[in-house]
């Protein structure tokens, strides 16, 4: 299915948010996630099913002012 990850289209076989993070090599990384504009806690990634056209945000710490 096709989804949007950080604003970019991505075709993936991942069925859950946790699988998606693993596919991207970010399973162990210091990241936080949101699906369709709502925060998804790391503990909930495994039970968060993905659907076509879902909009996923995967963010990490960055410089800020």
């Amino acid at each position, binding site marked *: 299915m096709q989804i949007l990850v950080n604003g970019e289209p991505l075709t993936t076989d991942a069925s859950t948010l946790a699988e998606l993070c693993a596919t991207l090599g970010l399973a162990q990384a210091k990241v936080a996630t949101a699906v369709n*504009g*709502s*925060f998804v*806690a*790391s503990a909930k990634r495994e039970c968060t099913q993905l659907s076509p056209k879902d909009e996923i945000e995967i963010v990490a*710490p960055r*410089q*800020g002012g």
Partner: protein
Amino acid sequence: MLDIYGERFKSRLLLGTAQYPSPVALKQAVEASSAEIVTVSLRRESARARAGQGFWELIEQLGVRVLPNTAGCHTAKEAVATAQMARELFGTEWINLEVIANDDTLQPELFGLVEAAAVLAADGFKVLPYTTEDLSAAEKLAAAGCNVLMPWASPIGSARGLVNRDALKTLRAYFPETTLIVDAGIGAPSHAAETMELGYDAVLLNTAVAKAGDPVNMAKAFARAVEAGRLGFEAGLTPPRDMALPSTPVAGTPFFKKILS
């Protein structure tokens, strides 16, 4: 001591971590500033670059408290979701809440700000809202549970200093017990000193240090200005007056004589 939601800090300077010429310059500037709190953000992580992972290692080495922001959010919904991601990522309930009205002025969008602050405070966040000097917005933020208010001095990155000094004075007078931190627009150490002389609790800045020719020395300059301004405020400033008042005693001035009629 600076009080943020019951936690006490010696330094009254909060420093941003963006725009430094190098990670080393950032580290040295934070050390030189004596800041105990730095602001951070969160951004999309690329699976290839993984930029956030290296940045986090650097911040951990600094051994300071982090204050995450919601910079770039334009709606309450975006800001709330960003704050929730920040809480998990940084392990802190503190959030420098920014809801931005437009990209030219980076002015706080006060209606969305109040809405987001209420949602987050109810969810256990300790909200530090980036606001204007507007009194009614400040009242609503305080009513929503904000114990700290962070009015701008002038637009973010503008380096124009305190463009509405009188309103900032009024805000200070109106909220004597609230922790007030000027956030944004501070361009020179003198601006920071002026803020502290008004009785503000702290100053938050980034660009003025990060973009200075020598960020480390500028960090030192701001540390001293903040300290000097605070000391001046605590010592009690002489109120200004319209006309001169001789400081040297007038009595006994030589050659003084009454004009004989």
